[in-house]
Structure formats: structure tokens, C-alpha cells
């Protein structure tokens, strides 16, 4: 009768240890170095955050950006028509802006760029107050969002633990009516079974209240709602 130990041994003994193709390894390294150099020389400051400024205009059309000296990448498009853009200098992602049903006209770019720069500086200099925090744990991974500044022109600092952003089911869930319902109930204080904890996020102490819920389609999720302690 095969026991666990036998099976474990068989698995270990049949592991393949292939020799990597040195040519591929060297070529990839050259490629990564070139990309790293490009990133490094294309901007004076490496940022440790993506800031998102929510603007609320209408949707997505990539304009001729090269003439403006600014690159704009669409990094995500959500079914409801909102999108996230990432501004770049060269190949380096820095700040991004989220727009709802918007088209970016070339004429707008200078003002957008100015607003992003103002937000970036305010954030870097610690002039933007942290006013809100929320998050979700989904399939063992957690994403928090910290909101700096004002609601309409805020600055979102994502803290992604476990690359949740890659999870398609997560994106489906946060677009679902069920998630909206949970958010609404949490803000209204109608969710039961809360636990609390104090977390350090982006250098701030945040009192985080969490609710563990089971959704018939998406399984167990934990909804987090935080209050900054600053």
C-alpha cells in the first residue's frame, strides 16, 4: 500500500532539473539590462507609487501623444466605461489617471499633466492627507487602496499583496452587484461580524475593520474598511 512518504519520495525523485539554455538566459539578461537602463535614464525620480487621479470625464481614445511630449497608456478598461491611463516618460510608468467615459483630447493633456505633477509633488511632500482606506481579500490575496486628497480629485495609493490585480475573477467580483452591495452595507454599518486591526500602510497607521463573507459564486472574501489614525 502506497503511503504519503512513498509518494513524496517518488515525486522528489522524478523532478526534472533541466540545464537552462545559456543563450536564452544571456539574451534575456541583455534585454532586461537595456530596459532597466532605459527606465533609469528616462526619469529623474523613481516613484514608489502609482497615483490615480479620478477625473470623471468621458472615455478612451488614444490621442497623438508624441507631439505633446507625453505618453499615455491605457492600462485597464472596465466594462462600465471607465479606464485607467498610465502616463509615461519613455518606458517608465509613473502616475496614472482614471477617467470615466472619457476621451482624452490632445488639448487636455497639458492640464492633465500639470494636475498629475501637482498631485505627485503634494504626495511626495506629504501635503496630501490620507482620508480613506479600503480593501478586499480575495482567494488569499489582498489589495488595499488608500485615498489621499479630495474625493473628486483624489490620489489613490494601491497596496497589492499577492498580485491580486492579475486575478480575472477578482476583477469580475469587484464589478459585480454583490460587491457594490457589500460596500454599501459596510459603509452603512450593516455588516455583522467585524474584526479590527491596526495596519501600517504606506507609512500610515490605519485602523482596519474587516468582515469575512461567503459569496455563493466567488467564495470567501474579506471586505476591509479603514480609518487613518493620523
Amino acid at each position, binding site marked *: 500500500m502506497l503511503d504519503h512518504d512513498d*509518494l513524496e519520495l517518488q515525486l522528489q525523485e522524478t523532478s526534472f532539473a533541466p540545464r537552462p*539554455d545559456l543563450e*536564452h538566459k544571456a539574451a534575456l539578461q541583455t534585454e*532586461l539590462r537595456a530596459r532597466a537602463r532605459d527606465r533609469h535614464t528616462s526619469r529623474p525620480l523613481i516613484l514608489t507609487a502609482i497615483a490615480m487621479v479620478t477625473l470623471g470625464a468621458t472615455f478612451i481614445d488614444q490621442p497623438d501623444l508624441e507631439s505633446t511630449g507625453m505618453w499615455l497608456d491605457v492600462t485597464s478598461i472596465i466594462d462600465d466605461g471607465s479606464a485607467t491611463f498610465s502616463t509615461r516618460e519613455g518606458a517608465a510608468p509613473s502616475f496614472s489617471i482614471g477617467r470615466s467615459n472619457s476621451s482624452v483630447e490632445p488639448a487636455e493633456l497639458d492640464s492633465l499633466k500639470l494636475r498629475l505633477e501637482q498631485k505627485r509633488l503634494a504626495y511626495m511632500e506629504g501635503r496630501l492627507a490620507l482620508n480613506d482606506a479600503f480593501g478586499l481579500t480575495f482567494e488569499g490575496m489582498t489589495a488595499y487602496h488608500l485615498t489621499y486628497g479630495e474625493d473628486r480629485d483624489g490620489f489613490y495609493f494601491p497596496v497589492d499583496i499577492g498580485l491580486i490585480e492579475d486575478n480575472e475573477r477578482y476583477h469580475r467580483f469587484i464589478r459585480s452587484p454583490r460587491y457594490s452591495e457589500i460596500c454599501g452595507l459596510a459603509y452603512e454599518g450593516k455588516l455583522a461580524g467585524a474584526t479590527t486591526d491596526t495596519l501600517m500602510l504606506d507609512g500610515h497607521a490605519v485602523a482596519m475593520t474587516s468582515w469575512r463573507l461567503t459569496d455563493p459564486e466567488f467564495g470567501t472574501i474579506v471586505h476591509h474598511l479603514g480609518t487613518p489614525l493620523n
Partner: protein
Amino acid sequence: MARDGHPGLPFDPKTAAVDDPDRLDYELGRIKGAKIDPELFDYLYEYYYDRIFRFFFNRLKNRVDAQDLTADVFHLALSRLWQFRWLNKPFQAWLYRIAVNRLNRHLKLAQRQRSWLAPIDSMGEEVFADSEQDPALELEKIRQRQRIERHLAVLSNEERNWIALRYYEDLPVKEIAAIYGVPEGTMKARLHRALGKVRRAMTGDRGE
């Protein structure tokens, strides 16, 4: 790797064990440095390339796909290095998490789950070409692996990832738990259940 030359160090950061405390300190310094100067990413690449490649190779048994996915992982890691934080999750766990996500997406897109058995039949030539071992022993190893893989088919993709990380990559359960962001006990139980399924499939197959 001129930038990594640190002859004054009391250990060799390129060959030290992954959990060596000195190496971990050195690695953390490299990660912090690479956020400011991405060229310092070289060390991380050198140290982890073979491991990530081997993980993909063991899961896919296809060199070209394994190389492509390895390249994706390092491109992604370089561009997302600023996201990495020392939240009790070692860099290795963070990197394997990227690899697992990338693999799952690859399998989903290519719908390769059903061809789990197929590539291994063409493994012989490649393994022999790579191996310094006795071809007869290698052939026996391939046959044994084929027998096991037939039964691993009862597992989900994610369960196969756990098995690959634990037994092919030899990662401690604690580290796999960190990759998946779950308590160590949970991961231990998951592995135990997965092994149980395989064991039942194997013994059932033998009519025991």
C-alpha cells in the same frame, strides 16, 4: 556581473542558500537599490532565473514555453519591483507568485490542461540532451514520472502547482504558504489533501 562583485563579503551571494540570513540581507539591499537603480536587478535575475525556468519546465515539460514564461516573469518583476514590499513575504515567494499567476493564465489561454500527459512523451530527447547521467537511469526516471503524472491528472491546476513547488522545486511549506498568502497550516492541509487524492488514484488504479 561586475556590479555584483563583492569580494569583501563573508559569503558568496550567488551560491548561498536561498534562506541564508546573510544572503537575504544582501538581497533586500539589492531590491531596495534596484528600485532606485534598476540595473541592480542583475543579481536577482542571476539568482532566480534557473529556479523559475525549472518550475515552468517541470510544469509544462516544454523548453520553449518555459523560456517564454520565464522571460515574462522577469520582465514583470522588473516593472513591478516598486510594488514589492517586505511584508513578511520573501522576494522568492513574490517571484513565484508572479510565476504561478503567469502559468495559470498560460494554461487557461492555451487550454493545456487536457494535454498534461502529451508533452512528457517528447521529453526523452530533451532530458537526454541535457543530462550528464546514465541514459538508462534517465529513461527509468521519465517512465516513473509518466506513471505519476497519469495520476496527477486527478488534481486541479492549482493543486499541481502546489505539488510542483513542494516536490519539484523543494520549497518549504512555509514559503509556499507565503506565495499563496495563506497560513502555513492551511497550505500543509492542502498539500496533504492533494497527495491523498493522488494516492487514492494510484492505489485505485492498482486495484488495491
